[in-house]
Structure formats: C-alpha cells, structure tokens
C-alpha cells in the first residue's frame, strides 16, 4: 500500500444525543508537518480524532487519504491506512508486559512466541528514539512518560504515516515534555505526519507548523503558527479576551485550621505513596499542592478526608485529632471535600438534583426526621443552592448526570461550602471546565478564603495555583519538594521541583518549556 502522504477530513458532522460535537469540520495535513488541533475542553477535538481512528462513525462527511476517499469503520481499518493514535487516556493493558501490549496491535506479529520474537525489534526501535524501555516490565510498573513511549512505539511499529497525539503532555513533567518535543522534531525530519491535540497555547506555538482551531464543535480558523502570537490564538480558541479578573488582596493568616504531621499513606498497590508530609493551613489562606498526577496527592487528600488509612503521623483540625476517623466524623468536624473525578466521586449520577444537594447533610435535623427525609425542606434548600451558585438546570427534578460538568461542579461546591466549613479540600476543581465556569469556581474559592475559611487546593493547573494560592507546596513521589510563598522568586522554577529537584536557588535552571 502507498504510504499516507496527505489526509483530508471534509465536512465532518457528528452528534451525541442531539448535541453537536463536530459541526462541518474540515482539515488537511501532509507529510513532514505537525498540525496543531487547538481548542478548549469539549470543543470536539477528541471526537474528531476518534472519528479519524474509526472509534466513532461520522454522521456525515468524508475522509481522503492521498486524494482518494476512504471509509474507516473500525480502528483496524484506520491502522491499515497508516494512521496511529496515542489516546489521552492510555489504551494499554496494565497487567501485561510492554511486549505483549505492542504485539497486540502489531500487524505482522508472529503467531507463535510473539514475546520472544519481537523483543529485539522493540529494543532497537526504542533505541532509535532514546526511549530506554524495559520490554519485559508490566505496564503498571511504568511511569506515565514511559507508558506514553510504549503507546508511541505501538503506533509506529505498524508503520503509521500519520500519528495522532491526544493531549500528550498532560501527564508529563516539564522535563519529560522537553524530551518528548525533541522526539517529535526528529519524527518531522523523517517525514512523519503528526496531529497534536492540545489546549496549551505554548505547546502549539512551540512545536506545530500549522494550527486548526476548534470552538464548540466548529472550525474557527486555520493558521500558520509562525504568523500568530499567543494572544491571537487564545482569542480564536476562547472567542473573547481571556481576562481572569481575580482580586486576591493580601491577607494575614489567622489561626491554624489543618495540621498535618509527618503523615505516611499507602497507595492502592500496597506500598507507601505519601512518605512523611507535614504542613499547616491557616484561616484566610489558600494552600496549593502542585505536582504531576500520581505523586501521592490523591492519597494525601483521601487521608485527610478519611477515605484512606493513615499508616503513620497525625492529622488535626482545630487541634482535634481526626487521624483515621470516619469520613462522616471528619466532615462534622468541619472538613468539606470537592473530590477529583466529579462524576465518580462527587455525585450519585442517577439520583435527582435535590438528592445530590444533601448527600452529606441528609442525616442532619433540618433535612430528616428519624428515618424519613423532609423533602419539602430539601427541595427548598436545593432551590436556594442552585440560585446562590448559579447552577443552570431546567429543574431540580432531573437526574444529576444530565447536567454539564461545570454545573455539576457548581452544585458540588455549593453543597460543600453551604455549611461554611473550616477547611475546604478541593481536588482539581476546575479540571475540564470551560472558562466561564472556571472563573466562577475560582472566585468562589477566593470568597471562601475572604470569609475566613481555610482552603487546601490540589491542582495540576499551574495558572490556577498561581492565581489562587497564598502558599504552594510541590509534591513529588510522595514528598514535598518545598513550600513556597506566592511572592517567592523561586516559584518560576516550579517545573523543576515538580520533576523532583529540591532546594532551588533563585534563577537556577530556568525552564523554557514554561
């Protein structure tokens, strides 16, 4: 088969349950070119690429390779046409070895003894890009960066002429990102065609030749990245000037609320992932924990909110010891929790809005009498809540899963801070939300701070950390690399700390990928 040299997508339409995810989309990419696909979360980038990879079927439109119309009705057809995709959430078999994962999709994998016969070609393939991967390791033993390299090898061994990368840097440290971009540049020199999906302007500007910008399922423009500056790209992507208007006036810290002393916590795999962390959070303070996902922040938050055993150390709220207490008891002590993965952990998706609005308060006197819920008061409370927190919903009598992510998050936040908790623990509160909802939620956190609450904010979004936090701790492999005041000049090098560097001196190792 002829190698893929150009690819066009013409007039592509796709809806999910009546919602237009892709609306008349056109794009084109050729060999030796990196095309950026820029857009906010929910703009339809991933849907479009899943159509190209045969996971979804378009409602209308056509795909052309080298000028000929082709049909892609399954991932296999896509692979056969020379298209490879690295998904944002890796498509790897965690319990299998690297070789087994690569053999699974390799068109010319031998029927017998694939593990033995493919080792050599995988080793030499990974040497070509300096990947340095042990082919016999199980995938779950690999870091996110290593897993991504496995995904890239998987796509390239099949001779993919077009490589689709969906948010490839979202799991990488700044240093890993830099290495990754070197690999991309090398591929471009070899004549590889690449589509890079991202919502990060810096990345698009740095690595892409051309960019196609999506907004709400439509193409809002094509451009050469050289001719665009970040500001105009951002304007195209968002449709208005990005002005985050936050008024974070300086506040002096009041009394101590949260006191974490030398805490150690085990992860799901049974070995320690939080290794002796100590810090305090005070009233009128937002304390941020920055770091690449998977460095123990989830487990630390679960330990503080009572969802996970603390194996060593103490946690106190207002000088009351809450170590290994039940979540309800901790909640009653004044700790609220906005969990990550809001659909899985924040709500019961099939329950009605008004039921979700009192998930943690249903046992309180105002909402129940003995075994019975007081629905009148619950509904009144919910109506007030959706008004106060601007939850857009046609009714409180609908299943909560029908709300958009932003509105679900507003509902959760409203539920959690309605009782004015002393400590609010928020994990990735604005992850995947649009600009409007993000701005609103961040302002609510600042309001909570101004009212005298203490906020513990875990986020991967450094903009969010910088905008909101009075102090920032950087977590790496279960330890704090340091705790910085927001006006500390070393904060510019936070990327290095996220990759495991401790004790930074000012100006050292300025990181150009930021």
């Amino acid at each position, binding site marked *: 088969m002829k190698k893929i040299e150009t690819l066009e997508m013409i007039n592509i339409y796709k809806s999910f349950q009546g919602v237009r995810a892709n609306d008349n989309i056109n794009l084109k990419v050729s060999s030796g070119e990196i095309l950026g696909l820029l857009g906010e979360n929910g703009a339809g980038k991933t849907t479009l690429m899943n159509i190209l990879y045969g996971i979804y079927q378009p409602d209308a439109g056509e795909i052309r390779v080298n000028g000929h119309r082709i049909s892609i009705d399954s991932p*296999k057809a896509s692979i056969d046409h020379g298209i490879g995709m690295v998904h944002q959430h890796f498509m790897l078999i965690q319990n299998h070895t690297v070789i087994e994962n690569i053999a699974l999709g390799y068109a010319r994998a031998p029927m017998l003894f*694939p593990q033995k016969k493919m080792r050599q070609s995988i080793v030499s393939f990974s040497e070509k890009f300096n990947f340095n991967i042990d082919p016999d390791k199980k995938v779950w033993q690999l870091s996110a960066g290593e897993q991504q390299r496995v995904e890239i090898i998987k796509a390239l061994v099949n001779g993919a002429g077009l490589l689709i990368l969906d948010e490839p840097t979202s799991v990488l440290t700044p240093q890993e990102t830099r290495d990754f971009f070197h690999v991309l540049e090398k591929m471009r020199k070899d004549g590889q065609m690449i589509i890079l999906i991202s919502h990060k302007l810096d990345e698009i500007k740095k690595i892409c030749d051309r960019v196609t910008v999506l907004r709400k399922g439509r193409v809002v423009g094509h451009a050469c990245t050289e001719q665009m500056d970040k500001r105009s790209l951002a304007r195209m992507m968002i449709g208005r000037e990005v002005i985050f208007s936050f008024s974070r006036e300086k506040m002096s810290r009041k009394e101590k609320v949260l006191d974490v002393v030398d805490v150690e916590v085990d992860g799901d795999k049974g070995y320690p992932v939080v290794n002796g962390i100590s810090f305090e959070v005070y009233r009128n303070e937002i304390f941020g924990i920055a770091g690449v996902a998977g460095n123990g922040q989830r487990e630390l938050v679960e330990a503080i909110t009572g969802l996970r055993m603390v194996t060593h150390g103490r946690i106190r709220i207002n000088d009351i010891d809450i170590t290994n207490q039940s979540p309800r008891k901790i909640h009653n002590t004044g700790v609220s929790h906005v969990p990550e993965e809001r659909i899985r952990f924040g709500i019961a998706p099939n329950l009605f809005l008004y039921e979700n609005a009192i998930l943690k308060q249903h046992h309180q006197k105002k909402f129940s009498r003995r075994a019975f819920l007081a629905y009148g008061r619950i509904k009144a409370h919910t109506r007030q809540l959706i008004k106060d927190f601007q939850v857009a919903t046609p009714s409180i009598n609908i299943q909560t899963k029908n709300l958009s992510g932003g509105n679900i998050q507003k509902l959760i936040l409203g539920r959690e801070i309605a009782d004015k908790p002393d400590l609010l623990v928020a994990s990735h509160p604005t992850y995947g939300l649009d600009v409007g909802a993000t701005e609103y939620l961040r302002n609510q956190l600042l309001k909570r701070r101004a009212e005298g609450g203490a906020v513990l904010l875990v986020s991967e979004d450094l903009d969010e950390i910088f905008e909101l936090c009075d102090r920032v701790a950087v977590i790496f492999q279960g330890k704090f690399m340091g705790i910085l005041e927001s006006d500390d000049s070393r904060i510019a090098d936070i990327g290095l700390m996220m990759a495991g560097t401790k004790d930074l001196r000012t100006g050292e190792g300025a990181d150009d990928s930021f």
Partner: protein
Amino acid sequence: MEEILISVVQRTLVAGTPLLLGTVGEIISERSGILNLGVEGVMAVGAVTAFIVTHHTGNPWLGLCAAIIAGMLISMVHAFASVSLQSNQVVSGLALTMLGLGVAGLLGKPYVGKPLAIKINAMPIPILSDIPWVGPVFFNQSPFFYMAVLLAIGTWFLLEHTLLGIRIRSTGENPKATETQGVNVSMVRYLSVITGGGFSAMAGAHLSISYSKSWIEGMTAGRGWIVIALTIFALWNPMRAVVGAFLFGGIFVLQYMLQPLGISPNFLAMLPYMATLLVLLVGGLRDSRRLNAPAMLAEPYRRGDR
C-alpha cells in the same frame, strides 16, 4: 497396601478429569472477560448427548464429538446474551445452567436405567504403562485423562505464548484498548465462550460414556460449580488448574474412603468448596494484583461508548 495406594491415586485422577476439562474451558472464557456460570448445564447437555448418540450408533467417539458440538451450540446462548446483548453475565449464566439441566433431563428421560453396551475404556500406553508404580497410575487411564492433561498444557501454551492468547487475555483485561488495536473483541469473546462450552461438554461426556456407562438425571452432581470455584483456585492459569483439579479429585475419593469411618458424607462433600474459600481468603490477604482475575471479567463491553 501397594495396590490400595495405586488404586487411590488412579481413582483420584479419574475423578479429577472432568473437573480439569471444565476448568480449562472456563479459564478460556473468563480470560476473555466472560464469566460463564452455565458450566453445570453445559456438562449435563454434554453427558446426555454423548450417551444418546453412543446408545444409538454404538460408537462412543461419535458420542463425544456430538457432545462437544452440542455444548458449543448451547453455549452460544450465553455468548449471544453477554456479548451481543451486553446483559448481566451472572443472570445469563445461571439461566444457561437451568436450561442445560432441563434440556438434559427431558432428552434423557427415555434412557434412564439403560446401560450402554460399549464405553470408552482405559487405554494403556505401550511401554510406559509397564513402568512400575507410575505406569498403572498415569499411563493406564481413560483417553479423557490424556486429553484433559494435553488440552490443559495446550491451553496454557496458547494463552501465554501465542498472539491469539495475547488477544484473548487483552480482551479480558481491557476490551476498549484491545479494540483500538484492531482486534474484534466480540469475535474473540464468542470464540472463547463457545470453546469453553465444548470443554465443559467433554467433561460431561466423560461422566456418561467413560466414568460410568449410564445416564441418570443430575449425574453432574455439582461438578460444574466446583469448576467455577476451581477457576478461581487456579488463579486463571491452566497449569495450576491441573494441580487443582486432581487435588479436588482427591477430595472426591477421600469422601468414599472416609465415609466408613463415620464422618458425615455431607461434611466431606463440603470439602472442595471449603478449600476454595480458604484459597480465596489466603489470596485476598496477599497483594490483590497477584490474584490475577481478568480486570474486566463480567463487565459488558459496548463499542463506541463514550
């Protein structure tokens, strides 16, 4: 004394044979992510089919082939429900057990109490069966025994050392990722469930045309459930299934030996299940990852879901 010992081991291997066949089949099915609780029913269908065909043709080998085909066909019901319709696999599997037991009872009604004129007898392997001790125990067995052991080893080889094996295992671990690699997940699951059904039917045939030469309703006697337990006991590994099946076979023989000593037969019948519980308990206390259950076992998979 020597003769008693040889006979005990020999009977252990005979009792373990259908368990091994069934377990290996269930391992294939579960490794692809489909829990099949219909083993007991498929075994019964295999047993009655083998008996009827042997009775009429006088050829037990033809009976065995017919049993395998019948087991595969009836397993398609479960494959269709759990793969194509994405229904609850526990419910569908239980339905298959009831269906199989019912169908077998109905078809076998006229044959109750009629012994076969011919059955598949022990087949001593030349030279090897003359080895003292080992010979009579391992190499003077029913062909079912040799087939069961060879199929177990073959299945282990298939799962661990072939591309098809990687595909089956990947399907059970992460069907979505497997699909994105161009593998037809539905087809792999259909094949695995149907193959598993063939194995279970073989186990049933062993009971009616080799172990005994008669058909009575309920002759599978819960062996299908022990197979489900053995699959977990074996941690989804066919090689461990060999050990497990003959260990459990030994417990069967133990029932007969200990009964004269005044131990309640009900207590002894409980032993295989107790052993399984014990293994699960011990396994659960250790690292859960090493328990090895396919990650997406019994989870329906639908293409193109968001």
